[in-house]
């Protein structure tokens, strides 16, 4: 029961990470348009956008990769390893 | 489009500070009181710098009125994170009070130190609150403000000119400092108009600008004192 709840929470947190990262990127992109509209020097904005947008995406991707990977490969051993272990499962 | 500029003739300036007083009343600039003033929180959009030249006993004192210089290449607007300060089409460096978040970066970036910050909310005595200029907003605590070349006067002048279907006449739009100067040391007008008074004055050999070497291209010109 508890582990099911925990599992849901984990997936919710992955979703939250992505929402956070994507909204950050959307914000940066929207600032590009603001810069264009206000006739600011667009170079700075583009420079930051080029670096920051993929950066946040990479961080989120790494986290997702780790989280899903760990979840995926924990099941195999859980049955054999935790036989005498915890009462959950 | 006009390009507004100011010429201050130091030959005529007596250092009477009438421009400072006119500016303060015109723009509802907060009066901070003695204690705050001693801390260095006096708020002046128009200030008078006192320059001492030479050593005693041959000291010469000069006065230099200093509004915002409305640079053509202003260092302050680049750093503003929210576009509370920007250069408008007529070359006036705007300070949009309701947009300012009070980071004071523009104050730090201004080489002329013209900007003031509202350290506390202005506290008007009742008698003065009734005398505030309704054309200018009273600023809250926590924002940066500075000389606007009395932009509200330009709005009114433009509106009047539009109603009468004509262009703004020279001298119709004057900031409070220029209007009040008893010796007419401060002239104001359109720098783009070759026939205007200011365009004539800046061709004078006495013309100089403050800190010209840093390349900010101020639109406030000075005429140095002749010996």
């Amino acid at each position, binding site marked *: 029961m508890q582990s099911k709840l925990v599992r849901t929470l984990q997936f919710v947190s992955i979703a939250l990470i992505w929402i956070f990262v994507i909204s950050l990127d959307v914000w940066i992109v929207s600032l590009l348009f603001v810069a264009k509209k206000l006739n600011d020097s667009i170079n700075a904005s583009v420079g930051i956008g080029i670096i920051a947008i993929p950066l946040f995406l990479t961080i989120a991707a790494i986290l997702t990769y780790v989280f899903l990977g760990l979840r995926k490969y924990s099941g195999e051993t859980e049955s054999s390893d935790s036989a005498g272990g915890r009462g959950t499962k | 489009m006009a390009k507004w500029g100011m010429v201050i003739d130091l030959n005529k300036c007596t250092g009477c500070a009438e421009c400072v007083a006119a500016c303060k009343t015109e723009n509802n600039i907060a009066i901070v009181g003695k204690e705050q003033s001693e801390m260095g929180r006096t708020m002046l959009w128009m200030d008078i710098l006192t320059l001492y030249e030479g050593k005693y006993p041959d000291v010469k004192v000069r006065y230099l009125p200093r509004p915002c210089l409305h640079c053509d290449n202003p260092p302050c607007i680049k750093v503003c994170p929210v576009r509370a300060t920007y250069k408008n089409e007529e070359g006036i460096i705007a300070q*949009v*009070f*309701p947009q300012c978040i009070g980071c004071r970066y523009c104050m730090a970036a201004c080489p002329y130190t013209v900007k003031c910050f509202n350290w506390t909310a202005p506290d008007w005595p009742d008698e003065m609150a009734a005398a505030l200029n309704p054309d200018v907003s009273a600023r809250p605590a926590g924002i940066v403000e500075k000389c606007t070349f009395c932009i509200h006067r330009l*709005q009114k002048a433009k509106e009047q000119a539009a109603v009468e279907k004509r262009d703004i006449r020279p001298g119709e739009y004057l900031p409070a400092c220029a209007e009040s100067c008893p010796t007419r040391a401060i002239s104001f007008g359109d720098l783009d108009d070759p026939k205007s008074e200011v365009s004539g004055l800046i061709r004078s050999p006495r013309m100089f600008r403050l800190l010209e070497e840093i390349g900010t291209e101020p639109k406030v010109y000075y005429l140095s004192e002749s010996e």
Partner: protein
Amino acid sequence: MVSRRKFYLFLFVFLLFLGIVVWAQKNFQPVQYNHKLHVEDAGLSCTDCHVNVETHERASIPNIAVCGDCHDDPETDNAEIKKVVSYVQEESRIPWQTVHRVRDYAYFSHRRHVTLGQLECETCHGNVSARELPFEKPYVEINMSWCIDCHEQRAVTTDCYACHR
């Protein structure tokens, strides 16, 4: 039984609340002014009372002299007119509540919008001539994006300093 009592209690509270709201609405403005009556029956136009609309920054809410031109007879059945007449006789201003308010850091001129911009009153204030009660809330919520939208549509300046000061 209990549930019925609860229901009545609820009803009572609700009606009380409703009553307060209606009462507060009714008394928000000092006089229950009827725009429709004045426009249709008396044949007035906006500028007859709001005399400064075309020439000044503020449109002017009629001061008591304007009302007094017509309402000088205290012999009337209408309670609202009686109020007006008493204001006229006392020569005191009617304490209207400002509803259409522009923030003090923004510059708004009626002349600029009506005379120069050729805007109709209805654009910002709605169909006033059909109103039978005075304004309690503005016809549109006055905020910056609303101003800017209109300025952009009509290709008027959107320079911050055109309005902010």
